């Protein structure tokens, strides 16, 4: 592989962590705030390596609480900023994410899930689904993209900055240790050369470039009614945003008896299983929420109209099932869970599970 650059579209072969660093450069991010934790460390390493050439900044803080709040401060000042973490670090960052929900801050978080609870493994899981979608002491006013390939890690990291700055909700890219550490090909590019508009950041506190002033950002309210009004206004804006941001991938669901439903890297195994099973003549469909928050509930309802069963495979104990059940309340379709907390799921295992139905 020759020298990597964004000056033209380039096929590269790299780890997911390196991919994220390149995507942040491509999205014209200004600064990363971070605290090391496996398996996301190399995002920081690659970002700091690229930093001098692209004129970027990096601040290593004393812990993840600080990384989260310096990130909040960064975006308030008008910098396109992000952080990356995993596991227990994700737990600590929820405090800042919650403030970002309240103050409507466009903070971008990259999460490379590791095993849990607590320190657990440094390897892999999907056990940060619940905390990443609803981790704060609030209503989950955030956007969560769950990626499954390096190409998506690149595309959705760019999209995360755009969504955050367009709608002013904290935005998460939910990856995992496998995506972080594996190497596979992808095409990197300059989004503007592809005609993708990059939303420009602006100072949120103080004087804006157009001269208007905004000097009071609140996360404290004196009365119940006052807070109620603000949260309901945020809820309404979140719902309005949700319609535009929600994404999913649905394949062969119309005539399917069974739908295999997964998110993130497990979708790769699900896709392989669906292909194999369809070649054998089984009526199998594939559904994958790409945004976990907002969750594509209506789209899922439409996809399962003919289905008798949904097989849900996840590397956690029912965190995806919970999102699906909530979306499908009232439906009589049978949900068959395949729950492997902290464990990778292969194509063969999903096929085996299907054959047991």
């Amino acid at each position: 592989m020759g020298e990597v650059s964004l000056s033209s579209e380039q096929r590269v072969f790299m780890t997911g962590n390196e991919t994220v660093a390149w995507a942040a450069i491509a999205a014209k991010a200004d600064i990363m705030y971070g605290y090391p934790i496996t398996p996301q460390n190399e995002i920081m390493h690659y970002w700091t390596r690229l930093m001098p050439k692209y004129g970027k900044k990096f601040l290593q803080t004393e812990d993840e609480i600080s990384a989260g709040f310096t990130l909040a401060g960064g975006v308030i000042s008008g910098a396109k900023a992000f952080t990356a973490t995993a596991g227990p670090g994700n737990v600590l960052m929820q405090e800042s994410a919650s403030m970002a929900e309240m103050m409507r801050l466009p903070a971008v978080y990259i999460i490379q899930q590791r095993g849990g609870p607590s320190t657990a493994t440094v390897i892999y899981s999907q056990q940060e689904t619940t905390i990443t979608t609803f981790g704060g002491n609030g209503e989950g006013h955030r956007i969560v993209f769950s990626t499954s390939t390096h190409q998506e890690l690149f595309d959705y990291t760019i999209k995360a900055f755009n969504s955050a700055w367009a709608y002013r909700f904290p935005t998460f890219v939910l990856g995992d240790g496998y995506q972080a550490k594996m190497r596979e090909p992808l095409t990197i590019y300059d989004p503007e050369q592809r005609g993708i508009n990059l939303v420009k950041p602006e100072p949120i506190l103080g004087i804006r470039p157009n001269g208007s002033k905004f000097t009071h950002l609140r996360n404290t309210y004196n009365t119940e009614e006052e807070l109620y009004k603000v949260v309901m206004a945020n809820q309404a804006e979140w719902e309005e945003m949700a319609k535009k941001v929600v994404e999913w991938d649905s394949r062969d669901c119309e005539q399917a008896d069974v739908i295999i439903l997964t998110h993130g890297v497990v979708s790769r195994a699900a896709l392989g299983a669906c292909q194999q099973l369809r070649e054998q003549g089984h009526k199998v469909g594939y559904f994958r929420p790409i945004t976990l928050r907002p969750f594509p509930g209506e789209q899922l309802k439409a996809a399962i109209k003919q289905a008798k069963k949904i097989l849900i495979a996840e590397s956690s104990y029912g965190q995806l099932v919970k999102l699906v059940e909530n979306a499908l309340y009232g439906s009589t379709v049978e949900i068959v869970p395949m729950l492997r907390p902290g464990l990778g799921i292969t194509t063969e295992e999903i096929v085996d599970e299907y054959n047991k139905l």
Partner: protein
Amino acid sequence: MSKTIKIALAGEGGQGVQSIAEILAEAANEGGKQALYIPNFGVEQRGGVSIAYVQISDSQIGAPKFQEADILIPLSGRAVVRTKMHAGKDTIYIYDNSLIAEGEVGDSIVGMQYFDVTPPCPTAGEPSEKYSPETTVDKPNEDLQQDLIAGEPKTCSFTRPGPGIDPAEIPQVKKVIAIPANDIAKNELHPRVFNVIILGAVIAATEVLPLEAIEAALDVKLADKFKNNPQLREMNFKALERGYNLIKSAM
């Protein structure tokens, strides 16, 4: 090639399975194939079995890990046990039948940093004009900074003489090939190119890439080292070819 070739390499930490997996995947990618490489990794600083998963295909690759490997290459007794779940009826199984066992980690290193205990490694010497392979095998660390190795003897032998892998431990598979890669490296070439012999063997067993593709990948990967030490290049290519021919003659 219509299907995806699944390769699992497993060895003791330090045997170099991750680096050859990476070279293999990169060469496949350069050759226009789809390739995916994922290491397994844990919190251990030293010792233990390290597994590398590589998949090569003409079409999009699915899940990063898999159950049954097409080619399974465990390089130590412990690796044979750890990779049992990846052996299936269609698996080609390549193992090292040299008379070696896993290296031992002494209690004296508990609490020490990785860099304090890892160098100097018994196989760390590089062949050069100044130090012939023979010299570096006998006096393995002559080409290293001597202040690095002064003081306490450090613990970092990845292997030591031992009974070798017990053939009875090997699971039922399509084909088993034993190669004395460790012995060949030590006696004919240089301990450091052990993993390159294995890489040659993988290329011969998978038949998805020409040997030249790997030579080109090595030239890119080790460009600086090869430039400083042309003998090293020759040695690596010889090791690659040796590994390749071992498998070709066995199949």
